Every structure is written in structure tokens, then in C-alpha cells.
């Protein structure tokens, strides 16, 4: 009886694994098929790979689109890391009653959904003439409450002796942060970086609202606009899908352990 249950459990897990991986295989074989074959359910490699690629590069200014994606994801990630880790460090190292109250207030805000800020944010950026700009894309995400929380939690494991020794050596507070804290906490930064890069790379709703011309669109938005066209061509969309997924999947396989750490970071 126990053996049977264990066999069933194993079969179930392998089935779940297959279902989880199938859409990726579907995406890769799809990239080699024609649009009709794809919606017709053909799950075999075809011969349409080169025409699909050619069509994608004909319709999409790939250089510009990837520049936008990388620029927004990298700048956004770097700024968020700096601003949020400064705050997390400040809240933990210089804890005071007032700042702890402020921090508790921030945690409450964590549960307010983006929908409640979306409309005022849009009106703010459009009255500032910043619609369709990188600033509008990046600015609202720079101070992330989740990341501040994450860095504060992790700062608890930052050895106080290091700070005391540095102060004796005459280092200023910002020097301690820059030359000691950041290098010591690099694995904390690495995990946060992965999560932020993916979030920025995959962002959809806010970019959809503020980006209006094709030359500003990220690859994620490009996939969306190709897919919601009147007659979507799935052959070239699959190429776009593969290209949009490649960076995140590479990050995942190269840094899998760190990735999971980053995801769990806030709940340790």
C-alpha cells in the first residue's frame, strides 16, 4: 500500500514536471514552425525558423527594443539597490523609536495594490510631460518597500564590530557603508539584484501605461503588442518569446541558488 502511494506520488511529480516544462519546449519548436502550424497544434520541429527570424527583425527594431529593455532593467535595478539598501541599513543601524514607527508604517503600505496608485501616477507623469520617457518607466519603482525590508532583515547579520573598528580608524559613515557594508553584504546584493532584474525585465502594466511609441517599448511590451495585433503571427511571436525569455532563463540557471535565496529573502 505504501509502495503504491509512493509510486503514484512519483508519477504525479514527473507529470507536473512535464507540464511545467512543456510550454518551454512548445516555445522552442514553435519558433521553427509557421503560424498556422502553431495554432494547428504541431509539436515537431519545422523548417520555418529562418523566415520567422527574418520577419521578426523586419517588423521590430530589435536593437532599439533590447537597448530599452536592458537600459531600463539595469538602471532600475542599480538605483533600487542603492536607495533601498541605504534605507534598510539606516533603519537597522540607526534604529530609533520614530524611525521604527515610520518603518512599521511602510510595512502597512506594502499591502496597497498598484492599482490604487496607477491613475495618480499617470496623471503626475503626464502633467510633468514625462510620458513615454525612461524616467517615467524607472522612477516609481526605485524606492521599494519590499527591498528596504529585505535589506533591513539582512543587515541584522552585519557584524557590528566591523563598524566599530572602522569608526576607530576614522572612517565616515558613508565610507563605512560604501567600503565595508557593500562588499561584506555582496551575496545579499546579488540575490536582490537577480529578483529586481527579473521584475524590471518582465514589467508589463506600468510600461504599458507610460510607453506609447514603438521605439520606447521593451521586449516584454513588444511581445504583448505583437500578440494582441489583429492577426497575430505566432511564428515571429515565438522568436520574440524566446528572445524575451533568454536573459531571465540564463540568469536563473547561472545563479539558481542565489535566485531562490533572493526570493525567500524577505521571509527569513
Amino acid at each position, binding site marked *: 500500500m505504501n509502495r503504491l502511494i509512493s509510486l503514484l506520488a512519483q508519477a504525479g511529480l514527473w507529470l507536473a514536471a512535464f507540464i511545467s516544462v512543456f510550454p518551454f519546449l512548445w516555445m522552442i519548436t514553435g519558433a521553427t514552425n509557421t503560424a498556422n502550424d502553431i495554432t494547428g497544434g504541431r509539436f515537431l520541429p519545422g523548417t520555418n525558423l529562418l523566415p520567422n527570424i527574418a520577419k521578426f527583425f523586419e517588423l521590430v527594431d530589435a536593437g532599439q527594443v533590447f537597448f530599452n529593455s536592458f537600459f531600463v532593467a539595469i538602471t532600475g535595478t542599480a538605483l533600487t539597490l542603492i536607495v533601498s539598501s541605504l534605507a534598510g541599513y539606516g533603519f537597522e543601524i540607526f534604529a530609533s523609536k520614530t524611525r521604527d514607527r515610520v518603518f512599521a508604517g511602510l510595512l502597512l503600505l506594502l499591502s496597497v495594490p498598484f492599482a490604487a496608485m496607477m*491613475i495618480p501616477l499617470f496623471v503626475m507623469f503626464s502633467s510633468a510631460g514625462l510620458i513615454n520617457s525612461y524616467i517615467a518607466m524607472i522612477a516609481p519603482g526605485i524606492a521599494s518597500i519590499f527591498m528596504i525590508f529585505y535589506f533591513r532583515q539582512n543587515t541584522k547579520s552585519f557584524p557590528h564590530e566591523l563598524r566599530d573598528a572602522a569608526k576607530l580608524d576614522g572612517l565616515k559613515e558613508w565610507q563605512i557603508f560604501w567600503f565595508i557594508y557593500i562588499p561584506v553584504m555582496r551575496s545579499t546584493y546579488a540575490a536582490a539584484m537577480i529578483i529586481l532584474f527579473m521584475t524590471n525585465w518582465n514589467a508589463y502594466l506600468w510600461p504599458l501605461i507610460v510607453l506609447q511609441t514603438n521605439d520606447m517599448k521593451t521586449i516584454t511590451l513588444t511581445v504583448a503588442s505583437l500578440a494582441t495585433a489583429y492577426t497575430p503571427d505566432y511564428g515571429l511571436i515565438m522568436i520574440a518569446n524566446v528572445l524575451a525569455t533568454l536573459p531571465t532563463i540564463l540568469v536563473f540557471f547561472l545563479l539558481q541558488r542565489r535566485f531562490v535565496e533572493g526570493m525567500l529573502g524577505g521571509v527569513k
Partner: protein
Amino acid sequence: MHTGLTRRENLTGWAFTAPALVLLGLFMIYPILWSLYMSFMTGKGMNFKFGGFANIYRLTQDPIFLHALGNTLTFLAIQVPIMIILALVFAVALNNPRLRGRAVLRTAIFLPCVTSLVVYSVLFKSMFADDGVVNDALLFLHIISEPIPWMNDPFWAKVLIILAITWRWTGYNMVFYLAALQNIDPSIYEQARIDGVPARARFFKITIPMLRHVILFTTVLSTIGTLQLFDEVNTITASQGQGGRPADATLTLSLYIYNLTFRFMPSFGYAATISWVIVILVGLLSWAQFRLAREK
């Protein structure tokens, strides 16, 4: 530690937190307060006038809103429990050290998390086409006798959205449970086994109570996520540039807010009111879930 700060250190503390606090004030607190204010305003575009509770009254009379609310709550009530239970079962099964191929299975089940919501939505849209690969497989296995109209039938469209979200997020939740399971001292299970506690009782009497906090955390996260459902219903069940099809069967609150603001003649005040419905739902449901977890 609260009293140990010098005046100078206290100021330094503000200096470190200031950039984040200023940005949060500008891009979060100010917009939140503004949208609360907006929700009492009526009018199209930028022509506001004070409407008192007019928007709230309009909510109760708006069949599209009620429909979107019903859809969102349906997704929430069906999808979140299915996903949490699946994730728990996978995590417990994968936590068995004697299981072969654990690393491969874990990586595979987690893999959907790396895709963007848009990309996976597009993949699902193509796989679930009328004569697509999923219908072909189901027909081949004789599970169905004619193709399921996934995207053209209100019932099946909802099923499709639920399947899609479950695919994308089960592995994500599973990782939280796996991490928590590794923190449980194995000797507890060993002792229970020696005392003759059957496997099912070990699961319900040891595993579930030990994971209570993580389960609560993931349930709250999933609830917030599902209440804001947008990307999938604006991609998988969209056609001709309009999401939430067919016949608004997959229209969600977030999508309705988006439509009211950016697709129709903008009705900012009314849209803001609906966004506050989401805020209140998030608050109420999180509170209820916390209460429930504490009582157990």
C-alpha cells in the same frame, strides 16, 4: 538600543533613509492620498467636480463592475486554494530524501517562474487555440470527444485563466514550503514514526502546523496577486486589442480600471473608487487570513 544614539547618529539615520522616504512619499503616499480624494470626484477627463458618494452609488448600479468583481472573486476562491494545496503536496513529496531525481524535478516545477507574465500568457494562448496542441492531446487520449472552445466559452475561458495562473505560480509557492520544511527538525518525524503515528496524521498534525506561518504568508501574497490580476486576462483572453473576453467572462477589477482610465473616455474618479475596492478587499481578506491562522 533606541536610546543609544547620539544626536549626530540620529541625523545620520535620517540621511540614510531620506532618499527612499522622499521617493516613497512622492510616488506612493501622495498618489494613494490623491486617488482616495479622486474617488469622491466625478466627471470625464480632467474636469472634476465633487460628487460625494456618487461613485460608490454608481458601483452598486454598474453591471460591468459587479461582473468584474464576481469574476475576480471566483478566480480567487478557486485558484488560490488549488495552487496552495498543489504546492504543499509537491513540496512534501520533494522533501523526501529517498526520492530519485529530486533536483531535476524541483528545477522543472520551479521553471515557470522565470517567464514573464506576458510571454507565458502568449504561450498559453497559442497552446489552447481551438485546434491547438492541448485540444489535440486531449482528443488523442480520448478525454474529450470534441475540441473545447477554451477562449470562446465563458466557462472554459475562466478555467483556462485558472490553469494558466496555477502553472505560473505553483512552483513559486512550493519553494517557500521547501525552505520551511528544511527547517523542521527531522527527529520530530522520527519520534512520531517510532510512536506509530501514520503518515497522514504526520502531515496534518506536524507538517501543516509547522508551516502555518509560511502558508499564511503565501496565501496573503497570492490573494493580493489574484485581486490585481491583469496581465493574463489582457493577453490570453484578449482579441482585437480588448481583454477579458469572451463577453467579459474574464474581466477583472484591474482590467476594468485600466479600461475606464485608458481605453474609454477617462473616468478617473470612478476608476479610483474601484481601485479602493481592491484596497479594501486586500485589507479585509488579509485580516481574515491572519485571524484564521492565529486561531488554529
